[in-house]
């Protein structure tokens, strides 16, 4: 089985994030594999171990992404492709990324593509579905279970806390939701072997893409941090007075009509 995993390097949103000059400060930020992509990698490894085949991890990013790509190889992926767009693209969006990935994948023998449900930085959840559309294959998002029998696939999908069972077939793209599996730590032998596994580094030129083919469809107007959470108010006095005060505050401060 030919398995592909779409993987993004992102900053760790559990660490402190700062903004300067309208962009997120990369100095001092910790970078990680997008956590949802870790589920995708783990699932790919489990599918390969059960059904045989080969896992290729693909990442659109920059030179720095090699660290995360190597980590995926250390976890157990067989080879990797890093499409370095650093010199060609200044402002890409989900359209850009999906177009590049699809261009790379279009002439490959694809059985299964796994991606994260969302990237925790942009949080759009678009790249997976867009790639599937461009490749004209079915896709199922936010999956929590994957069963493959020949070319028949049964998927459990998380729909806002409920489960939906979907039957479909390969080739297929799925996006991973939390709960799909428990991603493994890279093993020491995996880490030591990661450097020797094949990693292809490509640029746009290698894909026959022009910059205008992948120009972003969206524009970022402004990036800002959420407002600081302010201390709550504790009302005091008789209950009746508190209720009156609450209604007044809801009108005047919270602007509830």
């Amino acid at each position, binding site marked *: 089985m030919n398995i592909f995993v779409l993987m993004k390097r992102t900053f760790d949103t559990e660490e402190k994030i700062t903004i300067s000059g309208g962009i997120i400060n990369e100095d001092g930020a910790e970078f990680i594999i997008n956590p949802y992509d870790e589920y995708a990698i783990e699932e790919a490894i489990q599918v390969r171990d059960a059904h045989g085949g080969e896992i290729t991890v693909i990442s659109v990013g920059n030179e720095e992404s090699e660290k995360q790509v190597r980590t995926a190889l250390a976890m157990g992926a067989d080879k990797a492709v890093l499409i370095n767009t650093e010199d060609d693209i200044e402002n890409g969006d989900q359209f850009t990324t999906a177009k590049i990935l699809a261009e790379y994948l279009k002439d490959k023998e694809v059985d299964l593509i796994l991606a994260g449900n969302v990237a925790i930085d942009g949080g759009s959840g678009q790249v997976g579905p867009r790639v599937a559309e461009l490749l004209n294959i079915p896709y199922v998002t936010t999956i929590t279970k994957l069963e493959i029998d020949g070319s028949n696939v049964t998927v459990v999908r998380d729909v806002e806390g409920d489960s939906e069972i979907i039957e479909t077939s390969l080739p297929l793209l799925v996006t991973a939701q939390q709960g799909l599996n428990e991603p493994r730590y890279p093993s*020491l032998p995996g880490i030591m072997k990661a450097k020797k596994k094949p990693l292809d580094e490509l640029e746009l030129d290698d894909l026959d893409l022009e910059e205008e083919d992948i120009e972003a469809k969206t524009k970022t107007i402004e990036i800002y941090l959420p407002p600081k959470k302010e201390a709550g108010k504790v009302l005091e006095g008789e209950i009746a007075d508190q209720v009156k005060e609450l209604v007044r505050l809801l009108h005047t401060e919270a602007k509830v009509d």
Partner: protein
Amino acid sequence: MNFDFTAEQEMIRRTIREFAEEEVAPGALERDRKKEFPLEVFRKLADMGMMGLPFPEKYGGGGADTISFAIVTEELSRACASTGITYSAHISLGGAPLHLFGTEEQKQKFLVPICTGETFGAFGLTEPSAGSDAGGTRTTAVEENGEFVINGNKCFITNASYAKHLALTAVTGEKDGKKEISAIIVPTNSNGFTVINNYEKMGLNASNTTELVLEDVRVPIEHMLGKRGEGFKQFLVTLDGGRIGIGAMAVGIARAAYEKALQYAKERKQFGKSISQFQAIQFKLADMAMKIELARNMVYKAAWLKDQGRPFSKEASMCKLYASEISMEVTDQAVQIHGGYGYMKDYHVERYMRDAKLTEIGEGTSEVQRMVIARLIGC
């Protein structure tokens, strides 16, 4: 000069830090209270291939370097010092002498199960009346019909309850009026071999520290490790490597204490301000950060020298001495910054202080380190 980690070292650091934060730290307080050995943690470390980290792949090891060993020991010790010493002793006291001095057959038989995590590694040197003066060994091994018959006592031996075999030192004869000390590999299930796990310790409560009693324990002559009469020289070499482990462990404990103190100082308000705004507290934290950085640099330097195959005894002693002493200072100040809360177990820092103390004692006391350094600078 290059202060960057290699790609492998960096990946090992990230992996083990995440593992330590998620799998090791959460139970540390409970294990200390209950004196419970972290067996489950080590089962997972074995699954990750960490138990044979610096040993060659052909013995089931990871083929990684000493810097990586220091990284792993620091991160584990930061989460739980008992886990840290268990790991450090397993590798540098248990595995290393077999790797350094063992025959091919001994390595296959005794090093492989250490690398796979099937058994823990241990090393029996200290005796009730032979500590710093390890040459004062009284345990004897008398040759009889192709076997050694071993009698004696060892004390304070780490990991022995969980070791299927261990190397220990014994007097095998006399040469020119001097004791001839050799190292012998002894299976712990041998007849006459008793491991007593009965100490009430100040700290490192979740680690395993034991007494060994050997009464007419018989092992084949082939269990001699290295050359006859070189047991003393061998354990000096072994301890050089072990000191890097204790240095890394001391840095890990100090870092845990410093990080807790920094966070607490920012949160704790007295006199209307965070106590981190008082210069008295700031200076403490600044000193802690500096000492940890210096200690770690020295640990890495000793490890780097060892990886380059250069002499590293002096640096190993320096890193162990410095790191263990600043670890005591930093953990003490971390308790101080926590005020009354620091004296309470739930805040962790008092445990760090108890655990740190061992690093000034084990694998050569601070006084012994100063003796080693003094000798190596030509006194």
